[in-house]
Every structure is written in structure tokens, then in C-alpha cells.
């Protein structure tokens, strides 16, 4: 059983808290501290972003984070080193990567997966790799061999037939995109969000976690009433953006924000 599956089956929480931040922003060593802080303050699963030069599914906050990160010398050695350090701090918390497909493809799928697994990664989210591609099938097969998960995105525009087909190459959980557009904080969500998530739960036998746009404890609380997990990226990245030049300040601000969100969905 995959680590994510057993986590959701453990019944340790009503709704999982899944924070995200981009590795290497403002530098790789600080990322280790940020990761540890987020883990210590209540992440159930942690999404680590591998920066990509052209993140088309991301809004301005995460785009800027990727750009800042890429000003450092990018290397997979650094990515895996930092990942392992975060993993070693709290090995029981599942870590997943969120990145675009080109860096993975370029590294080589099996090489990437072997090294990611060694570093403590148990799943992947790839926003520009739809499930119905040859590469996705290959990736899913290779991940299964390693007992790792491929977490696909489902959106408000996804139709039933496609959602059903998607479940064949999906595992871990479903990343439900709460609204149209790209990542970024939003004030409001579509009125049928609850119904869409219920529909997904009835259609796919996987936990449904909601992301894109969630930033406040109130929003997290409200959506956690019916989603199996809450994913927050841009709001966390904004904390890093606003305080990143001062590591101590960032760590304090992150601890405060993460613990508030965790408390709101308990």
C-alpha cells in the first residue's frame, strides 16, 4: 500500500492539510528550514515544487517563486539533497513533487523516479501531463513498481467520461482544481464546489483534495467540511516572498500561518 493511501486510511484527520512551496526560493538551504517548519506545524502531506522556467498552470506568485529559485544554479542534485533533508526531519509525513513534465523527461523518467524515491518522495503532481498520454501511462507504470503515486488534476471543466477514464492511471488522491484559471489566492469559489466534490467522490474511489485559490483559515475550514484535503500553495509562497530575505522572520511567519490553517480544518 502506498504511503499516501495508508495515511488517508488511518483516519488521523477529517481533512488533510497539504501545503506547497517551491524549492530554492530564495535559496536551497533556506528551503530545508521552511520545509521543516511546515512539517512541524501541521502538514499532513507536503508538496515540494521543482521550479520550471515556464509554469503555465501557475499564477504570478508561484511564477515569481520559480523565477527567484532559478536565479540560483538549478541542479537535480540540489533538489534531491534538500528533499532528503526535509524528509529526514519527519520521515512519516509523505512528500510529493509538483513540477512540469519537461524537467522529469529530460532527467530520464526512471533515473528521476529512483532518485526521488531515495530522497523520500512518494508521489508526483504534473499539471501539464494529462492522463491520456503515452508518457503518463509510462510514468504511472514506473511509479507503481516503486509504490509511488501519480496524482492527477481534475477541474470544473472535466466531464464525467474523462473523470472515469482518468481513474485508471491515478492513485494517491485526486487534486481537484476549485476554479478556472491558474494557481493564486481567490476570494470566492464556485457555488457548486461542494456538489462537484461530492460527484467526484461518488465517481472515483480516491480521496478528493481541493486546491487553487484557498488561502484563509475560513476558506480552509469551509471546504474541509466536504473535501478530503486542502491544498494551499500561493498563500504560503506569498509568506516566503514577503519575508524570504529574512530566514528567521519567514520561519516564524510560516509557523504561524501553517498552524492556523491546520487548526481551522481539525
Amino acid at each position: 500500500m502506498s504511503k499516501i493511501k495508508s495515511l488517508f486510511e488511518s483516519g488521523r484527520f477529517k481533512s488533510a492539510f497539504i501545503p506547497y512551496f517551491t524549492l530554492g526560493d530564495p535559496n536551497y538551504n533556506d528551503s530545508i528550514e521552511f520545509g521543516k517548519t511546515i512539517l512541524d506545524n501541521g502538514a499532513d502531506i507536503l508538496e515540494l515544487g521543482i521550479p520550471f522556467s515556464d509554469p503555465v498552470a501557475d499564477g504570478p506568485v508561484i511564477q515569481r517563486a520559480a523565477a527567484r529559485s532559478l536565479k540560483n544554479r538549478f541542479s537535480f542534485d540540489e533538489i534531491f539533497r534538500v528533499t532528503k533533508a526535509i524528509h529526514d526531519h519527519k520521515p512519516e509525513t509523505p512528500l510529493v513533487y509538483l513540477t512540469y513534465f519537461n524537467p522529469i523527461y529530460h532527467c530520464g523518467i526512471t533515473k528521476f523516479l529512483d532518485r526521488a524515491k531515495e530522497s523520500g518522495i512518494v508521489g508526483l503532481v504534473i499539471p501539464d501531463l494529462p492522463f491520456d498520454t503515452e508518457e503518463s501511462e509510462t510514468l504511472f507504470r514506473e511509479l507503481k513498481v516503486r509504490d509511488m503515486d501519480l496524482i492527477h488534476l481534475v477541474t470544473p471543466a472535466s466531464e464525467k467520461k474523462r473523470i472515469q477514464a482518468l481513474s485508471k492511471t491515478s492513485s494517491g488522491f485526486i487534486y481537484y482544481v476549485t476554479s478556472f484559471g491558474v494557481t493564486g489566492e481567490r476570494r470566492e469559489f464556485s457555488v457548486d464546489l461542494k456538489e462537484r466534490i461530492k460527484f467526484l467522490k461518488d465517481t472515483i474511489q480516491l480521496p478528493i483534495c481541493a486546491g487553487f485559490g484557498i488561502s484563509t483559515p475560513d476558506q480552509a475550514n469551509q471546504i474541509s467540511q466536504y473535501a478530503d484535503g486542502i491544498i494551499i500553495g500561493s498563500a504560503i509562497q506569498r509568506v516566503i516572498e514577503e519575508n524570504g530575505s529574512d530566514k528567521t522572520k519567514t520561519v516564524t511567519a510560516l509557523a504561524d500561518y501553517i498552524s492556523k490553517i491546520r487548526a481551522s480544518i481539525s
Partner: protein
Amino acid sequence: MGKNLPGYFGEFGGRYSPEILTEALEELESTYHKLKKSKKFKKELEYYLKNYVGRPSPLTYAERLTKLWGGARIWLKREDLNHTGAHKINNAIGQALIARFMGKKRIIAETGAGQHGLATATVGAMFGMETVVYMGAVDVERQNLNAKKIEMLGAKILPVTAGEATLKEATSEAMRDWALNVSTTHYIVGSAIGPHPFPMIVRDFQSFIGSEARSEFKKRNKKLPNAIVACVGGGSNSIGMFHAFLKDKQVAIYGAEAGGLGPKPGEHSATLTYGKTGFLHGTKTLIIQDEFGQIVPAHSVSAGLDYPGVGPEHAYLSQTGRVDYRMVTDEQALDSFLEVTRVEGIIPALETAHAFHVARDVAKDLGKKKDLVICLSGRGDKDVTEVLRLLGERK
């Protein structure tokens, strides 16, 4: 699944875009297939191409260039004579008609040199559609005339300041806009790039170039040309030109891509020479990237060629060897720009000037009594200020 999916050219192509766009891409694909078979749509498209764009564009015999180069006879497929001054209008009209059929009231586009933005703003004005054009802030500066025209036509220009602030970033931003407004908006992709079905649709709407050139040449000369040449950025004019000739094995096909300042990463846009297989803007193709799969900024003297990827069909044609793609440097393109202007009285776009440089070599190699057709993809009014600036730097 996998290889059975539509939209692949060999290993290249496909649909690698965020999930939020998938339904829209499927709707576009099925609508296009339906419209392709519709006599009414065909008639409507032909009407606008003839009466608004000015098609068929002429095939001009370039007597003075032929004499100067001393080789094959040179013929020019005059896309510069289209309304708005380039081939881009062919595709903009076609896609605007599809958008109208789908009930989309808003159209968006990305643009580098501004010709596709201008074409989209033009059809937006003509069909009364809200139009937004994403353009890199650097390109807004260096292609200011087109930027001004786009605004004058009533479209909104949104300058993109991220990254290198050129075509790549404008494309990313247009994709983000589409993801947000997908139910009301059609994204008129300007080159034969992007997720399926865009490379196919753009190629089809540009294939008038090649089919007209082929039949006109045959009518006048009772044979096919020996070679054809076109410039390649994303590759829309070239795939439109090449497509009708691909099965004519006796016709040699050449593509001219931007060699820029030199071979170092960041100095050129020579995707077919230096690119490696990868995934960008929804398609699997050849891309200029570093050892970690991060996209390397492209460079070209011509804003329209300044893109680190290329249409997937070109990647395939390069791999199969059917098309011979060659690099042309900024300096060579600039020399050809001046030469064609002075010898033929035609100011070509800087993009097209790359094709002229390759054509000169090919014409010499072919020798006399052979024929070479160059796709003159657009006129160079938009480039005059930039060329004068570059000539000033040369002094």
C-alpha cells in the same frame, strides 16, 4: 491511448496542456472536424480570403534577383500583399470563424513581431469581437508600429514583463488567460505550435499558401519548381508553404531558422539545429533547453522568430529529412533584407529575410534553368525602425 491519440507527427505533437483546457481543446477539435466537412463553412472562409484578405496572393517572378544571384529562376509567393501585410491573417480569419461558430465572443492571441496580433485585432474588429493581445514588453518596444495598430483597431494589448518579455512569455500568459476564461474565449494560436488541434488547424489555414503556389507555378511553367524555401520560427508560413509539396519528392524543401548571434545557448532561436525533444506550451517538440530541461531564452533579430520551440510537424520533417533546415545569422538576415529591398523593390519582413539568405545559396547550387519559390511571408514595414537602429550600430 498513447500513440493512437490524434495530433502526433511521428513522436512529436500531442496535447500536453493543463487539464482545465482539455475540454476546450476537445470541443475545438470536434468543431473543426465538423466545419471542415461543411460546405457553408468552406464557402464562408473562401469568401473572406478572397474579398477581405485578397487571395490568391500573386506569384511574382523576381527577375533582378535571378540575375544577381546567377542561379535558379526566383519566384516569390507574395503573402506580403495580403491585408495586414502577412500570412498571419489567413489563420486569424479561419480561427475567428470557428470561434464565432462556437459562440465565443472574446478572442485572445499571443504575438511576437506583432503580425499575428495585428491579424487577430483586425478580425476582432471586423467580426465585432472583444480582442486581447499578449505581447512581450520587449516586443512592444521593438515592434511599436504594430503595437500601435493593434490598439487602434480596438484590441487591448497586455505587455508581458516576465522572463525575457518576448514571445515565449506572451504565449504562456495567453494560455493562462484561456484557462481562466475558457468558456467565453477562444485562443487564436498564431503559429503551428501548441496542443492538438492547433498545429493541425493552423497548418490547414495556412496551406492555401503552398497549394496556390503549386498550382500557379504549374499553370505558368507546366512543371513543378525544383525547390521551395520558407522561414521557420514557430513555423506557420513554412508549414503552409511546405504542405502541398511534401509528396512531390522531386521538389527540394528548405527551411530557414534564426541562427541569431551565434551557437551559444541564448544567442539564437535555431530549434531544429540545437533543440532537443521536450514539452513546452502543450506540445512535444524540439526545444532549446539546458541540461536540466529548463527552457533557454531564444534570440533573433526578428521578433517573429524569437521562440525556443517549433511546430511539432517541423520537428518531424526535420527528423525524417524531408526538409533541409538551415541557420541564418542576424547579420546575414539583415544583409538579405537590404538586398531584396534594393534589388526587387520589396521590403520583406526580417523573418522572411532569413529565407532569402538560404534561397540565395540554394539558387546557386541549383544552377540555371531551375526554379526556386520563396515564401515571402510578410512585408517589412514593421521592421524599418529596428533595421535602421541596427544599421546605425554597424557604422
